[in-house]
């Protein structure tokens, strides 16, 4: 798994490539929590999931933990461009219905919703 983080005004744009399994989720949680906490209050973290091919139950917990941390610290979380196999896992776990992060069909739509230039 590879993670790259791009900082824009009011947005942390995170691209996750590969598989978010147990081992990868440990690294992802650490990196993304640090990025979230270092972003300005009110910022949105957008996860570009277009190259994310797999999520295990550990990966789902990473997303829920991030959403929790975002809410607690006055930031927000969005996930964009989810592949169908990952979308299925999000749907079955109930995460898509839980209103704890917003889902966008594309990264551009997520950036626009966050008001990013």
């Amino acid at each position, binding site marked *: 798994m590879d993670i790259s983080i791009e900082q824009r005004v009011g947005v942390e744009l995170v691209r996750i490539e590969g598989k978010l399994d147990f081992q990868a989720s440990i690294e992802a949680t650490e990196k993304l929590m640090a990025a979230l906490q270092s972003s300005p209050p009110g910022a949105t973290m957008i996860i570009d999931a277009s190259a994310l091919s797999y999520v295990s139950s550990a990966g789902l917990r990473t997303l829920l933990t991030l959403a929790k941390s975002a809410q607690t610290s006055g930031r927000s979380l969005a996930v964009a461009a989810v592949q169908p196999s990952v979308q299925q896992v999000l749907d079955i776990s109930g995460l898509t219905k*839980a209103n704890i992060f917003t889902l966008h069909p594309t990264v551009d739509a997520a950036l626009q919703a966050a008001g990013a230039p």
Partner: protein
Amino acid sequence: MASNLTDKTPDISLIEELCLLAIDDNGVISPVTSDAAFGMSIVGACLVELCLRGRLDAELREIVPGAPPRAVVWVIDRSPVGEPALDYVLSEIAAADVTPVVDWTYRLVSAAPNLLGMALQRLQARGIIALQEKLILWVLKSRRYPVIDGRELREAKLRIVDILIGNSVPTPHDSVLIGLAQTSGVLAQFFSEGELRRLRPKIDEVSSLDIVAKEVDWAIGDEIRRRAQALALAAGAYIG
């Protein structure tokens, strides 16, 4: 911004917390603990806790071609966690192949009374509950588990209320706790029927946000449906 009540994962396992929630103000264990749904919830609590502790991982897999995918679970670390109930479940799973969560829920439910006993013993050993045994009519033994200072139980209830009423995003631990407490009937211990009805949409929204817990919920629902069908058949045979 949400309150910080629900920010941290508590220093108590899901199985311990579920058992604690099943104890009433007089230290009496709820009758729901003898139901299959509670037994399956206990198993689910162990499975999810082992995932949270990095011993198991799970994914969705298409087991029957064309049928909806099911969650399967496997061991990623065999080292014991030091809690008897969790280590028992871990050892059972470690001895098998990758297996659907539903199968584990049915397979381990017979061990649920022992898992409950192990969790209660651990709660006693940690000074969270006490054990009071009394003889009734010099023969029958009655057991009570009064909560000692009540902090853990109070915190669990406050976290649940904060999520269901205060709109906090749940931690993975709390999301599963709410789901298992709901399906096992424990939530009805401290919410009235009317409150539960009112909170139902929120409970459905935030509970069991986890593929293992969702599968355990499904297994419990399936078990309840099967029992209801068997009862209906038996009643039909009796009337007929």
